[in-house]
Structures are given as structure tokens and as C-alpha cells.
């Protein structure tokens, strides 16, 4: 187990180097001169001279080859120095740390919403297979998978904020602010989890031990509750775990719609402001979170399903 975790953590290092290298390369292929950006941020647009730009280029090491710049950036990052925002001049890590709680709150709330919908819907759908309720749930799930979440978000705003006036259109702070973004982000995920809960439950219901439990006269409710549920949850945990990564991905768009002050919105804003050091910081954070979440999910299987042993694998 420890060996497995160590291997995965080594993988994390490779992933981070790979991803940051890709974004670093893109930044240098991209139009826009970072030296000029820094100079504009420091001296303003009007007083900008060619000498200032060149001085900053040398001072910030932007005249070195891309690969050297990348190694320098990596050196600083390893020591916990993410550089300063090209736009505001504030340290990148401070700004990011400030925005993390909002994103975590949103992701957690969305996860809760999706599980509250998906688990009951999936179980009922499986137990009452081919009933009208089952068809209704599955149609809803298919619609949920195909619906763009930014559209859903706008429709929810239209209905609940603009027409009914129940929730604020955007912003951050109270529980009332959180409901629409969490529902927007959670429903897409709920659609996938519902389908999986249903099929996993159906698989379990076909097993011999379920037939045995039924034939010894156990009430159907007890068959489901004590024998089927627990066993059907292993694949569900898998997919929920994998989806937490995609939940992080979804925050980017949902935060932009609802002006939610999290990492996702910070990333989008930084991209449009061409704030290279901030972009690199956000990308780094997303990469670390994504890999760590996936690792935690993998580790949790071992406890859920004793049949899995990582040492034997590869």
C-alpha cells in the first residue's frame, strides 16, 4: 500500500511538471509580451517607454531562453514562491489562498446536492425497474448529461431570481447565495451518478446471495437495505470520486456565471487579463487537487472492497 502511494506521489510530480511545462510553452507562444505587461502594471499605460520595458525584461529574466525561464520558475515554486500577479502585483499564493475556501464550499455543496438527488433516484429506479418512475428518472438523467450547465445556471437565475425573486442573481456570502450555484453544478453530476447507482444496484440484485436472501423469506425492504445497498456502493464511490475532479472543472464556468469569488473565476479572469504568473499558480493548484483527490479515491477502495490489493497490481 505504502509503495503504491509512493508511486502515485511520484506520478504527481511528473504530472505537475508536464502540465506546467505545457502551460509555460503556451504562454510563450501566446501573443502579448510579459515584460510589457509588468511595465504597464507598474508605470501605467501613458508613461510607458521602450527602455522601461527592456529594463524589466532583463531584471525579471525574461530575456533568457524559455527553458531556462521554466527551470527558474520551477525553482521558485518548489521553495513556495509563486511570484507576483502581473496585474495587481500581489503575491500569487496569497491571492489563491484567499479564494480557495469559496471554491471548496461550492464544490462541497454541489457534491451534497448531487448525492441527495442521485442515490435515492438511482436506488428507486433499480428496485422498480421498467416502471414509469424508472423511465422518468432515466430520461431526466439523460437530459442532465446533455444539458450545458451554464445554460441550466441561466435558466435557474431566470426562474428563481428574476421571476420569483427567491434567490440573489449572483454574489457570495450567505446560504441563499450558494443554492443556485450548487444546484447548477450538482445536477450534471447527479445525472451520471444516478445512472451508475441504478446499474450497480441492478447488478447486485441479480447476485445469488440476493436470491438466497429472498428465498429464505426476508422482506424485500430488508433485502435491499442489508444486502444490496452496501455492495452496490463500491462502483458508486468510484465514480463519485472521479467526478470530484470534474466538479473542480465545473467550478470554472459556474463561478463565472454567478460571480462566485473562487479559483475558477480567478483563473478565467487571469486568462483574459493575461496574468501569466496567476494562471500558472491556478493551473498548479488544480493539478495538485485533481491528482490528490484521485489518489484518495483509490486508497478508499481498499477499505470498501477487501478484494482489491494494490501490491499485486503491476
Amino acid at each position, binding site marked *: 500500500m505504502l509503495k503504491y502511494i509512493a508511486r502515485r506521489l511520484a506520478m504527481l510530480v511528473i504530472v505537475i511538471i508536464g502540465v506546467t511545462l505545457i502551460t509555460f510553452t503556451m504562454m510563450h507562444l501566446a501573443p502579448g509580451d510579459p515584460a510589457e505587461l509588468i511595465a504597464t502594471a507598474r508605470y501605467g499605460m501613458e508613461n510607458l517607454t521602450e527602455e522601461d520595458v527592456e529594463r524589466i525584461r532583463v531584471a525579471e529574466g525574461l530575456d533568457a531562453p524559455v527553458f531556462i525561464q521554466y527551470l527558474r520558475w520551477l525553482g521558485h515554486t518548489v521553495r513556495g514562491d509563486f511570484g507576483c500577479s502581473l496585474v495587481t502585483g500581489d503575491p500569487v499564493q496569497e491571492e489563491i489562498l484567499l479564494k480557495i475556501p469559496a471554491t471548496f464550499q461550492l464544490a462541497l455543496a454541489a457534491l451534497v446536492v448531487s448525492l441527495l438527488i442521485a442515490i435515492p433516484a438511482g436506488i428507486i429506479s433499480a428496485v422498480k425497474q421498467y416502471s414509469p418512475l424508472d423511465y422518468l428518472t432515466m430520461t431526466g438523467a439523460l437530459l442532465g448529461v446533455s444539458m*450545458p450547465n451554464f445554460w441550466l445556471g441561466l435558466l435557474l437565475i431566470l426562474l428563481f431570481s428574476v421571476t420569483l425573486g427567491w434567490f440573489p442573481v449572483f454574489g457570495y456570502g450567505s446560504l441563499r447565495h450558494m443554492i443556485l450555484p450548487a444546484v447548477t453544478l450538482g445536477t450534471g453530476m447527479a445525472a451520471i451518478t444516478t445512472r451508475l447507482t441504478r446499474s450497480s444496484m441492478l447488478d447486485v440484485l441479480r447476485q445469488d446471495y440476493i436470491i438466497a436472501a429472498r428465498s429464505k423469506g426476508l422482506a424485500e425492504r430488508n433485502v435491499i437495505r442489508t444486502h444490496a445497498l452496501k455492495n452496490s456502493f463500491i462502483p458508486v464511490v468510484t465514480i463519485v470520486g472521479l467526478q470530484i475532479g470534474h466538479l473542480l472543472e465545473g467550478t470554472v464556468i459556474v463561478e463565472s456565471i454567478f460571480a462566485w469569488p473562487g479559483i475558477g473565476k480567478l483563473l478565467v479572469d487571469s486568462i483574459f487579463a493575461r496574468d501569466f504568473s496567476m494562471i500558472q499558480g491556478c493551473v498548479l493548484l488544480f493539478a495538485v487537487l485533481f491528482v490528490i483527490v484521485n489518489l484518495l479515491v483509490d486508497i478508499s477502495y481498499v477499505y470498501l472492497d477487501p478484494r482489491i490489493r494494490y501490491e499485486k497490481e503491476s
Partner: protein
Amino acid sequence: MASAAVAVERNLTFIQLKKNKLAIIGLLIISLLVIVAVFAPVLAPHHPYEQDLDRVMMAPCSEYPFGTDDFGRCILSRIIFGTRISLAIGLIVTAISAVAGIILGMLAGFYGGVIDEVIMRIVDIFLAFPGLILALVIAGLLGPGMFNVLFALALVGWMGYARVVRGAVLAEKEKSFVETAMSLGASDLYIMCRHLLPNVIAPVIVMATLGIGHTILAAAGLSFLGLGAQPPIPVWGSMLNDGKQYLQTAPYMTIFPGLAIMITVLSFNFLGDGLRDIFDPRLKEKSIE
């Protein structure tokens, strides 16, 4: 003989497909979308760029069935022309990803060893990062423009194909017809194209069908954020972005383009699910009837 067998098999596929209602609905909608895209200039009641500043944000009426936007342009006409861009992005990105994935997966599975190791580690790296965020950063850094979105989405879309093809090639490679071909002195390229490719193509077709839908959704998300093709080109995602500001006064600016995206994605999901049931009957129970 062989071609007759293939013909029978194709026929069977079609018969099975006919049994799957949702897949047929999907196929019909997709055909309709293709017709709309091809004949857009004939079908659209107005020119998609034509502005009429006296008729800004008009509610749906007989002349403008979906209303007009903030420049007085016909929303229906813009959605009709937007079909072209959405389908084109979906098809081109999926084609590039699938071909790249097939080539890399084939090389990894066929040659094994160091080549396999290197290719699969690259796959791992790409899979270990949320693709949409990488696509967003790449397209964002490269700047606005259709080509940059195509490039970004293709770059994060090929890994699944590579994995599936590699797995299938590993299984097929051991079979006697491949060994026979090898001992007859057939070249590697010949074996890969003539013997392996036809046997690994089925799962790729299923993945690609679903992939077109995912790509259209992702591209709409990027253009909603302001990346991709720029105004006045009619793109569904950016139409939603325009509509966002006028949600209160002109909700039809938001409702109809979103509906177009959903129907398109849904139809590819229907067809993809149906094809998966046919090619892989074991999965049938797991998907929706």
C-alpha cells in the same frame, strides 16, 4: 465470401439499430441538423449578421420566430448558421483526436516495450489533469479564434481512444490470423491497417459518437466564456453569453441557443448509447433502454 459476410454483418447492425428507438431518434435529429447546417442560407429567414437597430430584442413573432437579439439580429437565423460551426467543431476535433489516439494506441499495443511505456505514461499525464481546464488555459493563452479552440480540444481529447485501441490491439495481436500474416512476411503497417484496424474500430466508433457530443458541449462552454470564434460569427455558446446580460428583458436570447446545444448533444448521446448496446451487448443492461 468475406465481403458477403461483412454485408450481412452490416445489415445486422442496422437491424439492431432499428430496434433501438432512442438511437433512431438520435440519428434522425443528427440527420436533420446536418441538413440545417448544409442548407443554412436557404432555411434561415434572415441573414445572421443583418442588424436592424429599430427592432432590438423583439419578442418572438411571425417574422422573427425566436425574437431578435441586442443588435436586432434574427436569433433563429443565427442559431441555424451556428449549427454549421458546432457540428464542424464536433466532427473535426473528434476526427483529429480519434486518428491520433488510434495511431498512438496501435503503436503502443503492437510494438510494446519502450514505445508502449512512453506513450502510456504520456496518456497518464494527460488523464491526470482536468481536460477542460487545460483546454481553457491553452485556448485562452493562444487568444480568441476558432483554430485555437480546435487545437486545445483535440489536445485534451485523444487519450481515451489511445487506451481503448491499445487494449484491443493487445488482445487481437495474439490471435492466429495475425501470426499467420506475420509468418507470411506481411509488413507491420500492412498488419496494422489490414488486420488490426478493422477489429478495433467498433469501440472507437462508439467513443467517437459520444465524443462529438462532449466536444460540442465543451466548445460551447469555452465560447460561453468568450473564447473561440469572435463576433459577429454566430456561435451558440457566445449567443448565451450575450443573452446573459438581458436575462430579465429578453430571456429568449438565452433560452433558444441553449436548447439548440442540448438537443444536439442529446442526439449524439442517444446514438452513441445505441451503438454501444449493439457493439457490446454485455453493456446493454447497464445503459438505459
